[in-house]
């Protein structure tokens, strides 16, 4: 623990990003200006499952202003997107950049038009004639696993493209005659990440050098560069990927997309800049979706309340293709991985199936697997408390992993360490005045008012030992920082991360300023540009502040050491007498000081002050790998009121007590919690991508797919608990996703508590007003589905 008080870390430093973004001077991909720019429009499939018989593009090509119409025939040499994995029993799917033969979802790109402007491109796309032969659409998750179901990928011979069993402990406890259990089938429906900026790509080519620069609204420029180089055989020194200002991501911009590859290919072919911007309708249909899980889970416990076993069958509906680079394993495996949560349970058994259906591919969405897992386990704990006639908070405290039990390996193999599980729960109970609420609820007629708790653990800032998705052949665990002082004495630091709203230009500058002894606003943070750094991936999986923040310290310390050496030569003293503060280098107990400008001049240009061996460039490069990851935890408590006439659910209060280690910038951390909870509220109460039996998306506008507005999101009370510090350089843990992870379960538990007098349990999210009406008035539970063997 750092004992001395810190000057910038832990302080609400105002964001350096804000000035440009508030004045309309942010530059997002679609704002970039190029002369002789050509525009793309994609023709997408309007059926979910079928075979292409023919595509006739003659009429489209006749339109004035059209530069070309392309189908798979024109991109035959491009290999299919194939997301490989070391996992056993995994079958990778082949996804061509344009559909070659078999159509697998509504929205799959079939052809692309290149035109003078987008309006003309869309005119032409409408004139392309496609003849298809329909196949039976496979839409229902459970039906897709049945032997009689139509097969999506013939070469795989099954719609289950990955299956895995987890087995820890034994089955002896099942013979215990006092054994109690609660069991239910939980369903988390499909969501869209919905960033306000839709996916956008512009590729430019340098006429002389032929260097391609893809400007992409991506979270992962490093992943995209490596993939483009691999698929298109372009050497890395002829290819840059730049993520300029990016308008949110939430996981939807963390994968490789066919449109990205096509934009680059066509730029190369036309030798001109090419632009594609998704419209909202396309974004709904073609940006990776998330969360669709069916989970049959059973929690076993003793009459004393002690948990002894957890069994789960999880079927993850991954859509039509296994997404690159994360694979289909990403979401469903994490449901099983995190199902046990922060509780001591000796016996764990889970079966996970990843099943393909005729819906768009799923990919990462804020929380990945955990919003579903936490929903299931935390609901079961409330049901267990009801069965035991005990208080749900008490039952959690009884079974929660204690400080003295850490490190603790849960049944799925994940190891929790350095996390204040109970501290967070106790803090949230205190802030929410939980006991008082319970007393009031028990004594007064306060049906329709409910309180819900959700506690969870998550792994963040994951190192190289654990892939973000199991078996994925990609190193997501390291981060490099190049910090340098140039000839003018100015400081810049370069990372491979790609901020898209997290304020990393500010927080990383805070960390460097703290470590070096300069001011945050004197430090320029470079990120989101693959030409500036040799390797890296981007910003996702709650990794950037934790890993990049730590490597920033490592590189800065190295540079600082070099500076001290030079300064001690100049001041004719030893390093321990050197002190750096506010951008000046001082000799302690004297009035001698030099600025960074003086230092740079001595190193680079005056040739007199320093001997040659001290005149090396002021650059330090270090790489950091946390190997494993840091355990972040939180408890969320929601208080809701259900209107008994309209069934409208109002969130009256919401509390988050979380432990994300050392807080770099409280204002930004609170903003992440607040925003994450807002998305969790959406997932719990409003958001659902509804597909009909034919595989048509019925919620393809923002008027049908409802995102919480300012009227639906309350102010959240947040408490930070920093007493358990992780074993990494900066003591930082990731926390960008946690808000969404805890909110689904807390709200589901609160709503169940509010209607407990009706003896109804919430088992499917979102619990929208109409679903709640049906549950209460018709007893219709959409979740009474049969789990296939």
């Amino acid at each position, binding site marked *: 623990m750092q004992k001395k008080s810190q000057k910038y870390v832990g302080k609400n430093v105002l964001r350096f990003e804000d000035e440009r973004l*508030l004045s309309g001077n942010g530059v997002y991909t679609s704002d970039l200006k190029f002369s002789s720019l050509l525009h793309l429009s994609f023709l997408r499939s309007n059926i979910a499952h079928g075979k292409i018989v023919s595509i006739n593009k003659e009429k489209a090509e006749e339109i004035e202003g059209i530069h070309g119409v392309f189908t798979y025939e024109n991109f035959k040499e491009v290999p299919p997107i194939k997301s490989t994995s070391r996992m056993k029993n995994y079958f990778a799917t082949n996804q061509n950049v344009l559909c070659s033969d078999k159509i697998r979802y509504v929205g799959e790109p079939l052809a692309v038009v290149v035109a003078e402007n987008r309006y003309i491109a869309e005119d032409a796309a409408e004139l392309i004639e496609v003849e298809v032969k329909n196949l039976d659409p496979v839409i229902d998750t459970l039906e897709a696993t049945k032997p009689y179901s139509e097969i999506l990928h013939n070469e795989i011979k099954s719609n289950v493209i990955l299956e895995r069993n987890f087995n820890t402990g034994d089955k002896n406890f099942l013979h215990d005659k006092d054994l109690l259990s609660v069991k239910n089938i939980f369903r988390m429906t499909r969501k869209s990440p*919905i960033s306000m*900026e839709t996916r956008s790509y512009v590729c430019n080519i340098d006429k002389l050098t032929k260097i391609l620069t893809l400007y992409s609204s991506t979270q992962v420029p490093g992943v995209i560069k490596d993939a483009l180089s691999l698929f298109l055989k372009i050497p890395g020194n002829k290819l840059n990927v730049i993520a300029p200002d990016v308008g949110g991501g939430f996981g939807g911009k963390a994968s490789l997309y066919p449109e990205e590859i096509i934009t680059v290919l066509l730029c190369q072919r036309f030798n001109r800049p090419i632009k594609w911007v998704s419209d909202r309708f396309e974004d709904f249909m073609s940006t990776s979706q998330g969360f669709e899980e069916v989970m049959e889970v059973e929690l076993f416990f003793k009459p004393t309340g002690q948990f002894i076993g957890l069994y789960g069958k999880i079927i993850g509906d991954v859509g039509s293709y296994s997404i690159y680079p994360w694979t289909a394993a990403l979401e469903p495996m994490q449901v099983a991985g995190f199902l046990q949560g922060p509780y001591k349970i000796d016996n764990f058994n889970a079966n996970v199936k990843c099943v393909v259906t005729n819906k768009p591919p799923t990919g990462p969405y804020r929380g990945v697997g955990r919003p579903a897992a936490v929903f299931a386990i935390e609901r079961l704990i409330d049901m267990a408390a009801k069965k035991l006639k005990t208080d749900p908070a008490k039952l959690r405290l009884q079974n929660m992993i204690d400080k003295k039990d850490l490190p603790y390996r849960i049944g799925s193999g994940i190891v929790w360490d350095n996390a204040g599980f109970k501290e967070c729960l106790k803090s949230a109970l205190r802030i929410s005045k939980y006991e008082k609420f319970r007393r009031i609820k028990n004594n007064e007629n306060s049906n329709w008012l409910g309180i819900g708790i959700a506690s969870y653990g998550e792994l963040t800032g994951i190192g190289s030992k654990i892939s973000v998705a199991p078996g994925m052949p990609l190193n997501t665990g390291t981060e490099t920082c190049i910090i340098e002082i140039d000839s003018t004495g100015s400081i810049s630091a370069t990372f491979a991360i790609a901020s898209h709203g997290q304020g990393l230009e500010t927080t990383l500058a805070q960390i460097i300023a703290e470590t070096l002894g300069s001011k945050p606003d004197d430090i320029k943070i470079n990120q989101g540009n693959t030409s500036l750094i040799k390797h890296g991936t981007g910003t996702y999986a709650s990794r950037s502040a934790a890993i990049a923040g730590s490597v920033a310290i490592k590189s800065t310390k190295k540079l600082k050491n070099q500076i001290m050496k030079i300064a001690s030569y100049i001041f004719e003293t030893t390093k321990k007498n050197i002190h750096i503060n506010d951008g000046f280098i001082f000799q302690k107990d004297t009035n001698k000081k030099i600025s960074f400008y003086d230092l740079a001049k001595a190193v680079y240009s005056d040739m007199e002050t320093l001997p040659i061996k001290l005149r090396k460039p002021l650059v330090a490069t270090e790489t950091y790998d946390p190997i494993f990851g840091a355990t972040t935890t939180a408890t969320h408590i929601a208080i809701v009121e259900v209107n008994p006439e309209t069934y409208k659910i109002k969130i009256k209060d919401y509390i988050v007590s979380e432990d994300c280690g050392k807080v770099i910038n409280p204002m930004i951390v609170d903003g992440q919690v607040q925003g994450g909870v807002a998305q969790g509220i959406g997932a719990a109460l409003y958001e659902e991508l509804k597909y009909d039996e034919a595989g048509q998306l019925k919620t393809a506008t923002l008027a049908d797919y409802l995102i919480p507005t300012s009227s639906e999101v309350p102010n959240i009370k947040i408490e930070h608990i920093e007493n358990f510090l992780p074993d990494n350089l900066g003591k930082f843990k990731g926390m960008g996703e946690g808000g969404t992870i805890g909110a689904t379960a807390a709200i589901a538990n609160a709503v169940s508590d509010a209607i407990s007098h009706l003896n109804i349990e919430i088992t499917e999210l979102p619990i929208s007003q109409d679903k709640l009406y049906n549950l209460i008035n018709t007893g219709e539970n959409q979740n009474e589905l049969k789990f296939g063997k």
Partner: protein
Amino acid sequence: MKFYNSKNKINIKFKLNDKIIEKEVEPRLLLSDFLRYNCGQTGTHVGCEHGICGACTILFNEQPIRSCLMLAAQIRDSEILTIEGVANDSKYKDLREAFKKHHALQCGFCTPGFFITIISILNENVYYDEEDLREKLSGNICRCTGYTGIILAVSEVIKKRHSKELI
């Protein structure tokens, strides 16, 4: 199918951020696209093109409107104000500072739309409390902040402006 003949253009003259502009536009050109690509004012963002998200909100004759739901041809003789027109306006310095202080923006994509909507609220010169503001701002979607920062920022500006008037 008959398509629009692009040679048949419409002449419009209007005021954009206090500058008089005259241009020829295609009848079907959206106002949002026109402002962004024909006038170079890319601060107006396009988030949905069906009038829900509010990212493209601009002031049209002092009224907040969705520029994705209007055609460029409809702005003849009108006054248009976009984020670029208020970016350096000292009248809204307090709002800009409050946005920074309360962390009312993260990715910044929805911000210009919110800013313009809020300006139209401030220009009403009515005291609104937090609950009123939640209602009044519910036509703009932000996916990052959970709205708290935005509501706090506007509340603070309104409170300060009204307390000044009392003195």
